[in-house]
């Protein structure tokens, strides 16, 4: 039956090519705008942690100013970064299965044999579990061991890109790079690794580039390396040297904890609260007890990775699609009524109302499918154009506006679904009328 309906639909398109094209075009435009906004929304709304999302936790404890909440837009929220003291104290907990503390620094790396131009690498100061916790893929070598955190040992893990710049991409494990007047031994080189959004650290933008090098955290205080990311301070303190800075209430550190069971998660929440209560006795944490432990999903929401602009544009795009659909309903209705006499003849020859209904619904489905495919292509062309325009001064444009096959399928499915919804009323209307009325004149 479907084959027959499709043939009838085709015949109907030939009868009114202009009107059909207009309908396809209407759906295509609506779908193309949806494709663009949906792509950017889904890029921001993605959670790259996968099934680890529920066992990785970031703490947020309220060490902030007694007179002023950390976030102006929601006064119940706590800071998203930690002081040095708190980072160290939380890291000392034995509850987590794995744990890390980190911050972003950087500097100029050279090679003693002058084999590379002096080059700036952003450098993540972190601890050994970082690589296992975030499932970081290695091309050569591997992470440093926990012992290297203690010493600390002068070891470095390079990104694939940095290894390309420093050693031309060869296996550089065992070779050294000169940084901060010391030789750092390469223990591992990462493979391509670019989770989007950069969920483990969104403080400098969720689409920010990955770091070029990774070095044990403990080198930070020893080499007095400041943050190349954000630093926020609220308290009036005399900070005369780096040690005083580390002891201050300034926040610039992050921590993640892997807590595989509900008991451990509960235990760790209690630990956070107990820690803050204990610190209050020493005159710190002047605000009311207000601690959070976010899993990856919660963390991305807390940091508003999906911006309100993303949501507003998505809403608008679907409202526009609604207009296109209402328009299509009107056009379908006019088209079906125009050709009503043909349906009348089919009815008179014995076709049931249901047959007529399905025939017309098939026709709208075909229109919608054509519109959906065309819209998806138009949408991808739009993404391409936006990237070209935007990419000249926004290097992360390809990450913000990805080409993704899944988006294509989603919008085509939306189009077909919407087209069928749009066809329901006209198809029902045409099937309902008595055959005789259509065989008569106007």
């Amino acid at each position, binding site marked *: 039956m479907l084959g027959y309906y499709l043939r009838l639909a085709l015949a109907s398109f030939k009868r009114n090519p202009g009107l059909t094209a*207009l309908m396809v075009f*209407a759906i295509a*435009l609506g779908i193309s*705008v949806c494709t*663009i*906004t949906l792509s950017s929304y889904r890029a921001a709304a993605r959670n790259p942690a996968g099934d680890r999302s529920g066992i990785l936790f970031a703490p947020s404890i309220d060490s902030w100013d007694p007179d002023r909440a950390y976030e102006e*837009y929601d006064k119940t929220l706590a800071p998203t970064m930690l002081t040095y003291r708190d980072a160290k104290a939380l890291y000392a907990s034995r509850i987590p299965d794995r744990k890390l503390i980190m911050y972003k620094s950087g*500097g*100029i790396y*050279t090679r003693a044999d002058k084999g590379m131009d*002096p*080059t*700036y690498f952003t450098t993540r100061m972190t601890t050994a579990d970082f690589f296992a916790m975030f499932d970081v893929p290695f091309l050569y070598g591997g992470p440093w061991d926990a012992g290297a955190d203690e010493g600390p040992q002068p070891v470095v893990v390079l990104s694939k890109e940095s290894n390309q710049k420093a050693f031309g991409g060869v296996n550089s494990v065992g070779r050294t790079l000169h940084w901060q*007047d010391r030789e750092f031994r390469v223990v591992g080189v990462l493979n391509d690794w670019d989770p989007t959004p950069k969920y483990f650290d969104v403080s400098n933008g969720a689409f920010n580039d990955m770091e070029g090098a990774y070095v044990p955290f403990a080198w930070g205080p020893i080499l007095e390396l400041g943050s190349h990311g954000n630093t926020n301070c609220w308290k*009036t303190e*005399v*900070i*005369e*040297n780096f040690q005083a800075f580390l002891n201050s209430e300034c926040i610039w550190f992050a921590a993640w904890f892997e807590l595989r069971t509900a008991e451990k998660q509960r235990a760790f929440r209690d630990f956070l609260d107990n820690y803050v209560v204990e610190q209050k006795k020493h005159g710190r944490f002047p605000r009311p007890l207000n601690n959070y432990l976010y899993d990856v999903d919660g963390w991305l929401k807390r940091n508003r990775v999906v*911006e*309100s*602009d993303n*949501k*507003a*544009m998505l*809403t*608008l*795009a679907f*409202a*526009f699609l*609604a*207009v*296109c659909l*209402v*328009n299509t*309903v*009107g*056009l379908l*209705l*006019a088209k079906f009524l125009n050709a009503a006499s043909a349906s009348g003849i089919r009815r008179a020859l014995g076709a049931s109302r249901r047959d007529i209904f399905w025939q017309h619904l098939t026709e709208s489905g075909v229109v919608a499918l054509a519109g959906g495919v065309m819209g998806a292509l138009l949408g991808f062309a739009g993404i391409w154009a*936006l990237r070209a325009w*935007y990419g*000249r*001064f*926004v290097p992360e444009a390809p990450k913000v506006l990805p080409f993704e096959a899944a988006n294509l399928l989603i919008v085509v499915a939306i189009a077909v679904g919407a087209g069928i919804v749009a066809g329901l*009323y006209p198809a029902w*209307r045409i099937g309902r009328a008595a055959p005789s009325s259509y065989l008569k*004149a*106007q």
Partner: protein
Amino acid sequence: MEIRPILSALLRNRAGAILVALQIAITLAIVVNAVFLTQQRVTKIGRPTGLDDQNIFSFWMTTYEKDYDFLGMVREDMALIRQMPGVVDATPIFQVPLSGSGNSSLFYSLPEKKGENSPANIYPTDEHGVKSLGVTLSAGAPFDANAIEYRKEQSQDYPPTAIVSQGLAKALFKDQPALGKTIYDDQSHPLRIVGVIQHMHGSWVGWDKVDRTILIPRVGPGPSTQYLIRTPPGDLDRVMTAVDTALRKRDPNRVVGEMHKMSDMKRSSYAGDSLMAVTLSTVTGLVLVFSALGIFGLATFNVNNRTRQIGTRRAVGARRRDIVRYFMVENWLVTTAGVVVGCGLALSAGFWLSNQYQMPRLDLYYLVGGVIGLWAVGQFAAWQPSLRAAKVSPAMATRNV
């Protein structure tokens, strides 16, 4: 006026009319809110920065060798750059306005954290800062060369003088002249105001206090700083290449970072706003076209279906003008029904947007504009079908179509 027969004819083909009215309603809701939001973004993007932002570029200069004479390097580099052809002026500056990256701190009008206070973006720079940034002083003068502190060690306190933007001056001293007054940081170190900048934007364009900025006469302590260079219009690209080459040649033992035009940084900082404005205005345009098409379609359909009725009316004495008026009024009725529903939709959408996404509340003038606009679009779209209806000959009354 012959409204009643029009209404009864409309009611006979309810579905079409309701669809068009619905379309107009959603269109009004979209257009009014989209135009309102676009207008805000466009205003934000286009507001003056106070800087010569089209003729400035900047880059990081980083040293890495122990005991490298950082301050000496800055002095020598500056001397080299400032005498190059096509350089209006150049300055070392720690952060660059409009770049998205900056520092801010609180300043007070009285010591001991008393009086008025305001945060401001801080720009440590030298005596060439004002001219290099291209900002205009409304009072006072640029820093004196010997007021610049070349600092060797990291330290918290500020040099004793500062140049502030009018925005910061106003936040701290209301309408009193700020020149010569003293402001204080949160540890009560005094800074005497030696110049007031008419207008200057800071680093974060999304910040509601972006016009509160302060220049500090300080260079160092390193190991890195940015260099900011201003050129005459049209010379930017050439000077960028020349400076890059000259600096690398003068001393290869430091890293000259990638050169960035301030105009690119500005566009990057406003990229989200531009994207929003482009998307919104595209959708606005498309949705208007679609509404016009819908109205046109309905009118054409009605005219085609009623040739006999029109012929009869003509035969019993209706003039062409009456026929045109009939269809125009019919469409006006449909549009109006849509617009009435649309007003409610537009207001609730606006309310929802402002609540949900912390956006400003819809301005009612936009709604009035939208209503008038859609009436015009409706009448425009119905015009051609109505004229066609008027051409139906009275003889149609006798024919069987």
